[in-house]
């Protein structure tokens, strides 16, 4: 026998799955929301997205090559996801220089300081987003109205998000039933016809992305269902206790960044728990914190903070919440 053969331990075959396939699968799932944001916010959305993606790629390349001195691995698609998610999480008229700072913080502090893909504790895009929110509160909360290509990148007509509207109104002591007249209808909320960050408005597009990721088995149902279910139940209980002070579950589900967060950010592989049980606990935590911040906190919106706080608990969850072992006695 002249043929040289390989000898290695089993298994001898592989599924063919790869990091790229999963990452680009997520990117594909984000396309509907991206298209909707272009339709609603026109030029602004395109500028913000391109800037965020390009700068994320650039910073990851520069940091790996010149600071970490290793071969840059930007082709794995993770920088693309961070870029798009960062863009999704900011208003469509955000100045370019602020986006650059956001990308630098997201990639530099959020990801590369920990050692790059797979090692970061916090979702990089959210690290960037929250940094911007705290540093540039005015620019980060002046939401352009979704007017399609009429939306100007500069001097856009801006308005409040439904969540901010309710929060301000309740603070002034106005009854909720009165305030709800100023909020777009549920159908409009679902279709994204409201003020908000670029990628968070179109609920329908985000749900489409979720369906695709579940179908392709890129993510499992545990995290999105736990987050959304908890928000629905918790806000439902509050609403039933006092309908004039607390908005209903549907309003909470469809407004702000909840769908975007539950579907695309809480499900980030690296920063979410490994076991199904862990994922559910993590999801419930995000849901509870979101409602608590929205209803009782200073900010009208709390999804980003909720996810970042729960990110910090993930290592702990991974240590204490073990998957059910085969043959383990059920209690």
């Amino acid at each position, binding site marked *: *026998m002249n*043929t040289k*053969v*390989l*000898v*290695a*331990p*089993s*298994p*001898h*075959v*592989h*599924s063919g*799955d*790869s*990091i790229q*396939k*999963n990452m680009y699968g997520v990117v594909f799932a984000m396309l509907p929301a991206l298209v909707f944001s272009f339709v609603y916010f026109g030029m602004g959305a395109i500028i913000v997205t391109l800037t965020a993606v390009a700068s994320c790629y650039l910073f990851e390349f520069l940091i790996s090559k010149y600071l970490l001195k290793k071969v840059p691995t930007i082709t*794995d698609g993770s920088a693309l996801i961070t870029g798009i998610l960062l863009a999704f999480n900011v208003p469509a008229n955000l100045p370019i220089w602020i986006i650059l700072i956001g990308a630098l913080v997201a990639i530099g502090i959020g990801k590369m300081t920990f050692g*790059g*893909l*797979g*090692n970061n504790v916090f979702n990089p895009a959210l690290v960037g987003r929250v940094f911007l929110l705290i540093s540039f509160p005015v620019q980060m909360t002046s939401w352009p109205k979704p007017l399609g290509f009429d939306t100007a990148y500069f001097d856009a007509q801006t308005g409040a998000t439904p969540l901010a509207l309710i929060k301000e109104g309740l603070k002034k002591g106005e009854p909720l039933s009165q305030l709800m007249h100023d909020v777009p209808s549920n159908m409009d909320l679902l279709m994204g016809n409201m003020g908000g960050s670029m990628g968070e408005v179109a609920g329908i597009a985000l749900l489409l992305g979720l369906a695709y990721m579940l179908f392709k088995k890129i993510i*499992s149902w545990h995290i999105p269902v736990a987050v959304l279910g908890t928000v629905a139940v918790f806000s439902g209980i509050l609403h039933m206790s006092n309908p004039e002070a607390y908005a209903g579950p549907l309003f909470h589900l469809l407004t702000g960044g909840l769908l975007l967060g539950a579907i695309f950010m809480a499900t980030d*592989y*690296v920063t*979410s*728990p*490994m*076991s*199904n049980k862990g*994922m559910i606990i993590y999801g419930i935590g995000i849901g509870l914190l979101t409602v608590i911040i929205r209803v009782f906190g200073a900010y009208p919106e709390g999804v980003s903070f909720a996810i970042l706080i729960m990110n910090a608990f993930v290592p702990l969850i*991974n240590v204490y919440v*073990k*998957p*059910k*072992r*085969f*043959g*383990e*006695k059920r209690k």
Partner: protein
Amino acid sequence: MLKTFSLGGIHPAENKLSASSAIQVLPIPETVSIPISQHIGAPATPIVKKNDEVKVGQLIAKSSGFVSANIHSSVSGTVFKVDEIMDASGFRKTSIIIKVDGDKWMETIDRSEDLVKEISASKEEIIKKIAEAGIVGLGGATFPAHVKLSVPPGKTAEVLIINAVECEPYLTSDHRVMLEKGDEVLVGTQILMKALGVDRAIVGIENNKPDAIAHLTKLAVNYQGIEICPLKTQYPQGGEKQLISAIIKREIPSGALPIEVGAVVQNVGSALAVYEAIQKNKPLFERVATITGKSLKNPSNWRFRIGTPVKDLIDAAGGLPEDTGKIIGGGPMMGKALTTVDVPLTKGSSGLLLLPREEAARKESKPCIRCGKCVSVCPMGLEPFLLMVLADKKEYDRLESDAVMDCIECGSCSFTCPANRPLLDYIRLGKGKVGQIMRSRK
């Protein structure tokens, strides 16, 4: 909903290329090399020496303990030598090398093809005869069959499960045995039921073999107490623990044997061997194996004499393809890569897979992205990503408390990992070390 096991599992491409190829008889080679250790447990002790004349079916190495198995000559001829030669594991092992002369069988063996349904042997006779015939688990694990049939005091067997799952991709030998030797398998099953004193047996077959399910279901009408149970196609359903979980919904506790939940599992090929041993007085010296591969001219199934060189099987199927990159003894998930084709086929050889070069090489391993897919596919509910890190860091205490010894080495984690991490390689290392530590503690 078809039944399947409780946790994890994967569905690799089935590639059952040889499923429609009827079992053929592989020509007897000029020399056979019969290793004295073809089973789990103590190697057998050779009882023949150079220049002894032997017949087909003659005992040539005697079981050397309770967990051990007799070895019989698969050919007639002269013992050339008893020496160490390389076997499929790549190590040199003692083997009995016999030069073939004709095909003279022991007179005690009934060579007729007639089906003998009447079981005259008693429970004790059956177990004794199975041990004498050297029957081991033919699914590949090669655990001596009589040991499983000897139920320890204090335990009772409630049900016999026949493993006809053949969940490894590519392999089809069990499939063909069921189609061509269905009655023999079912009589063998009844013999095993008698040996265990159970009145119920369940044959588990994955639904990617609808013809075998239909055939055996039709035949089973004539055999009391035997049920055919179609299962969802899901790897590693052929694992003993997974199969029991799939069929009777009971989970064997960590470290325990199937008898703990009242079950005994035997392979479908073993059932056929039991039939032949009890009804035809024929010890285990031949079996059926699949030779397969995408580039192979003729993927097919063959009945071969134990000790035949691997090379003969490859030649019978059209020769070694140009692009062969890996030769695997067994299936692609749990089989062992061979270093050469000059090793003998043994009792545990269920198949031979020739992988083309482009499929043989592993892809570059990337950092773990913590996707958790290894956790969700693990049929034992373990955390492969963590076990790998712990094995790498030599954290043996934590490996033990994280149940590394529960790993059945099915390879579902490595198969699934999007980052191509060699999870099972590290887990095996860790298992070896933890096993050593646990034994030294006793």
